[in-house]
């Protein structure tokens, strides 16, 4: 376009997504990106009312058992594997805790197998484990899940490519613009170094923030070991955009 377009939309909402800490869409080491990553640049859009709004969540919609993956698919015994506590806090870029926001997680079982029709890895399923979890953050932005540590598994990418142990995290935040889905890895896992998905993030310190820290203090004696994974969502451009005078 030859002229600077008139800005039609309210210049509020959220800080621009910093793409230097986000993965590249096209990343040949992760082969599935080759046919799926858009080739055209993303089209900039200042968030409008459509993007600064989004679903809101109520504790009444959540069953507390879904934060305990040892229990929520249990038939007759606990699932096999290392009992593991995942804890963390969700804040925005300004450090403000994000409370009552929905977190959904999913993961493989201790043998590295998902309860999914498309997973044909030879490792066994665990009838007492689904790998699905869900909770809302509390008033301080904290969450916790009790689960088993997922196993690593091979996947069709290179000749001998393995996924490090990981848990998928889906998180909403206050608006459709803050939506984020990521994966959490475990400190000390030797497979992290060569993971092509983690490698798609250009910034190494951003990569390292996806690696949950082993947390002995939160470990429960004779019960479970703990890992800590904090999440940061995009922050507001203005602290109180709803107080803006009309027309500005």
């Amino acid at each position, binding site marked *: 376009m030859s002229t600077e377009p008139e800005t*039609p*939309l*309210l210049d509020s909402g*959220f800080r621009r997504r*910093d793409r230097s*800490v*986000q*993965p590249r*869409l096209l990343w040949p080491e*992760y082969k*599935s*990106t*080759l*046919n*799926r*990553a*858009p*080739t055209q640049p*993303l*089209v900039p*859009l200042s968030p*409008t*009312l*459509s*993007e600064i*709004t*989004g*679903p*809101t969540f109520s504790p009444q*919609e*959540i*069953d507390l058992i*879904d934060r305990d993956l040892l229990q*929520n698919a249990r038939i007759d015994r606990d699932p096999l594997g290392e009992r593991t506590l995942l804890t963390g806090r969700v*804040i925005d*870029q300004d*450090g403000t805790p994000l409370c009552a926001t929905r977190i*959904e*997680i*999913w993961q493989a079982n201790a043998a590295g197998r998902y309860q*999914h*029709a*498309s997973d044909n890895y030879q490792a066994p399923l665990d009838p007492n484990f*689904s*790998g699905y979890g*869900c909770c809302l953050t509390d008033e301080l932005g904290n969450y916790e899940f009790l689960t088993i540590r997922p196993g690593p598994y091979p996947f069709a990418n290179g000749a001998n490519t393995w996924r490090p142990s990981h848990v*998928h995290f*889906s998180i909403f935040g206050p608006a*459709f*613009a803050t*939506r984020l*889905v*990521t*994966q959490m890895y475990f400190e000390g896992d030797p497979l992290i170094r060569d993971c092509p*998905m983690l490698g*798609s993030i250009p910034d190494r310190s*951003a990569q390292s923030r*996806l690696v949950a820290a082993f947390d002995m203090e939160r470990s429960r004696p004779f019960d479970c070991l703990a890992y800590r994974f904090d999440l*940061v*969502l995009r922050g507001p451009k203005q602290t109180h955009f709803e107080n803006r005078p009309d027309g500005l």
Partner: protein
Amino acid sequence: MSKDPLHHETSSQTVGPFVHIGLYPAVSGILARSRTYGNQLASTHAYGQRIRVEGQIIDGNGETVRDALLEFWQADGHGRYAHPADPQAKSADVGLSGFGRSVTDPDTGTWTLESIKPGAVGDLNQRPMAPHINLALFARGLNIHLHSRIYFDDEVKANAVDPVLQQCVPAPRRQTLIARRKETTQEPCVYRFDMVLQGKNETVFFDL
């Protein structure tokens, strides 16, 4: 408030092929006890014109993507979002879940959405946006989700003055955001919205 440096946003990672377990658990045979979100957004009490939107997602090889998950966020039939940032939120239609999800069928690659057509949304600058559904696309091979919008081809006048379509999206690419109404005399109205990930007719995806 202290002047701490800004925190970095957490990096995204792909949802992978097993996304259903967490975001659409019924597909994996998981009976979640917490609320889940499906592709039926409107209750029988919802105000507005009943619509079905359906489509496929085509990859760079011309193949349909069969392991994608889509999220939808829309206003009610009067153009109100059920969210505190919308000044009209208090009167938003309780018969509509503004948020929903759909997955591409593992055999056909088709996804569907059953809803009502959203009303025109007043932007905070009082410039109306044409009726549209906001969309986020997640799939194996997408390291971060893609944002797009579904507009409707029978909203010619509204689309012609929509600030996003007209001022953000290059003219030759606008048609990639417009769902085509199918010839049918029955309710609901059916619209087709295919997305193309690469190459000619590549769908517009936004950097919000």
